[in-house]
């Protein structure tokens, strides 16, 4: 090792004004025991540097009588400043695609540290219940998060809130009923990921990020459906026990994979069909626009859940039977309830009819029948993607809540 001595020139800077920052930088690449020379014109520099060295565990040796431009003394680097690096452990890698970036079971002591940071040993051990890679991870989280971040729309400007409403008042009342129904479903879609969000180990940052942006998506959905509902001056419609009971089973599900499956694969997936229906058949442009915007978000939520569960089922083959049991159990729990609010069903017919005439209502009715077929077909396709057989997919799809979500 060369022992050439660096000189740090502090100009007129004192240690009461940031000189320590320069000195630390100068010491950073020195070994313990190496010296750097200090030069500077601050009138009390020697006093400052002696005090600072004592506090930092460096040795200070002042030159007796520095002549102009000479060093006022020398700092010998102590060991304390680098002590924190001893035993510090790299917690994975910031780039999730790097080999070994994502730990299978990150220790609690890594806590809130940035993934890829060098973690000083010791410190708090926060408990994150979802702390195992195989339970939460999917490589799709990062690209889906990026997509979501790029696709955030502003409810204030993305929808023309002054678009004219020219349809019959009873059609408008049907829209208000549908919106009332949508809002409580969106609430469930916000609360469920929000509850799991705080339980994910921060090492799985991309998962946190996706869930966080999902919660933000749902917040906007709640907003636009509420705005649409009240746009024409109506009061919101009826929220039924049956609807809320169906959603409650989602809130009550403690298992992350199961909750994600029931909410996203089964529920939000079904909503993608419903929102497509609204986009095609709503009589007014604002409703169509809202349905278009929210449908794109929901499709992303479904894609995330499918990707995560596909991987999870791959590493834990038993997962599928666990999920199937959950659907059956939910079905039994909801057997005694009314299912889809009759008013919502009627409202969908009237909304798609666009007018209160026998001919239009017949058309609306047919659209709703087609919607139910589409919902069921799409659900089966998603279940098949998770590895369920055609027969299983058929059976499970038929057990899905009549409340859609």
């Amino acid at each position, binding site marked *: 090792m060369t022992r050439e001595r660096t000189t740090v020139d502090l100009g007129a800077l*004192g*240690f*009461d*004004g940031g000189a*320590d920052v320069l000195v630390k930088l100068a010491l950073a690449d020195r070994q313990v025991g190496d010296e750097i020379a200090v030069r500077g014109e601050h*009138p*009390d520099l020697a*006093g*400052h540097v*002696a*005090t*600072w060295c*004592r*506090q930092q*565990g460096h040795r200070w040796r002042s030159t007796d009588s520095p002549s102009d431009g000479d060093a006022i003394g020398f700092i010998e680097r*102590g*060991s*304390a400043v680098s*002590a*924190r690096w*001893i*035993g510090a452990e790299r917690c994975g890698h910031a780039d999730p695609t790097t080999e070994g970036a994502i730990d299978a079971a990150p220790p609690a002591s890594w806590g809130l540290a940035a993934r890829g940071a060098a973690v*000083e*040993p*010791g410190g708090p051990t926060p408990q994150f219940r979802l702390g195992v890679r195989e339970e939460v991870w999917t490589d799709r989280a990062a690209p889906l998060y990026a997509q979501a971040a790029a696709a955030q729309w502003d409810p204030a400007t993305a929808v023309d809130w002054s678009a004219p409403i020219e349809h019959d008042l009873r059609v408008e009342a049907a829209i208000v009923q549908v919106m009332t129904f949508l809002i409580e479903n969106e609430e469930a879609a916000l609360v469920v990921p929000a509850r799991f969000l705080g339980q994910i180990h921060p090492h799985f940052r991309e998962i946190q990020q996706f869930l966080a942006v999902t919660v933000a998506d749902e917040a906007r959905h709640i907003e636009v459906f509420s705005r649409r509902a009240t746009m024409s001056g109506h009061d919101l419609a009826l929220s039924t026990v049956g609807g809320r009971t169906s959603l409650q089973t989602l809130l009550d599900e403690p298992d992350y994979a199961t909750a994600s499956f029931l909410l996203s694969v089964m529920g939000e997936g079904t909503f993608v069909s419903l929102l497509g229906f609204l986009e095609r058949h709503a009589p007014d442009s604002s409703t169509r626009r809202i349905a278009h915007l929210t449908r794109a978000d929901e499709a992303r939520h479904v894609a995330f859940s499918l990707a995560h569960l596909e991987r999870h089922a791959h590493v834990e083959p038993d997962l599928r039977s666990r999920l199937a049991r959950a659907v059956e159990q939910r079905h039994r729990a909801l057997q005694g309830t009314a299912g889809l609010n009759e008013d919502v069903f009627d409202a969908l017919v009237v909304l798609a009819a666009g007018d209160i005439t026998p001919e239009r209502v017949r058309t609306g009715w047919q659209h709703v029948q087609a919607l139910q077929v589409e919902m069921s077909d799409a659900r089966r396709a998603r279940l098949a993607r998770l590895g369920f057989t055609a027969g299983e997919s058929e059976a499970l799809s038929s057990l899905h809540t009549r409340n859609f979500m």
Partner: protein
Amino acid sequence: MTITRPFTLGAVAYDPKVVTIWEGFKDWFATRDFAFDYVLYSSYEAQAEAHLAGDVDVTWDSPLAWVRTRRLAAAAGREARAVAMRDTDQNLTSVVLVRSASDIIDVAQLAGRAVATGAIDSPQATLLPLAHLADRGLDPGTSFTVRRFDVMVTKHGDHVGGERDAVRALMDGEVDAACVIDGNQLLFAKEGTIAPDAVRVLSRTGVYDHCTMTVLDDAPRFIVERFIELLLSMSFDDPEVRPLLELEGLRAWRPGRTSGYELLEQAVDRLGFYGADGTILVEGYPR
């Protein structure tokens, strides 16, 4: 002593963190099979007297508490020993600060002016700098006005509040100079109490030492040796010990020495704080 008690340390509770520190040390000593406990006092004077009475085996002393304990011991025909101190306790200085724009460029110009200090019993922010000025012909209270900032009196200036108040008074123009320990000048600059380039050092005291672990001559010698040995073995590189050392403000323990207390002994005499036998002489000091 017939029944052996754990080796017991006396410390002054100048801050709630004192409990965290000594609980941590207690746990750490336990892992080294060293029976250790601590007692907290609300004043250094009570602690020194308790030490003489044999209530504790070692005291974590302010420099002023060392001076008193040494004097009390000597008056009783006994001997106090300074056995360990922090690396950061060695070679300190105090500074007399003035505003950068002040017309005062020489200590003599403090005559007739107001000088802020820390608490009445602060070695670093009152006794040492006032004695330093007295040595330069400025008699405190006569040649110049002393504005004392009494925060946590009887805790020997351990609490930083008195010095911070003194510096604030200087910044606010209420006084012409303020006395603080060198490290606090940098601390106050860092936290923003002192604006950049707002003050300069008018004068700096000689070098002195700060806190010490003190034992008396009847302390169990082998246990004291083991206690010191364990302290000196504490390594800043050890992540288990590091948080404790950081809380207590050191990187390494050093063997004790008394050479750094000479200035304070002189200041105590000069300002009449304690008598040679450790009696408290200073007026208006709460007991």
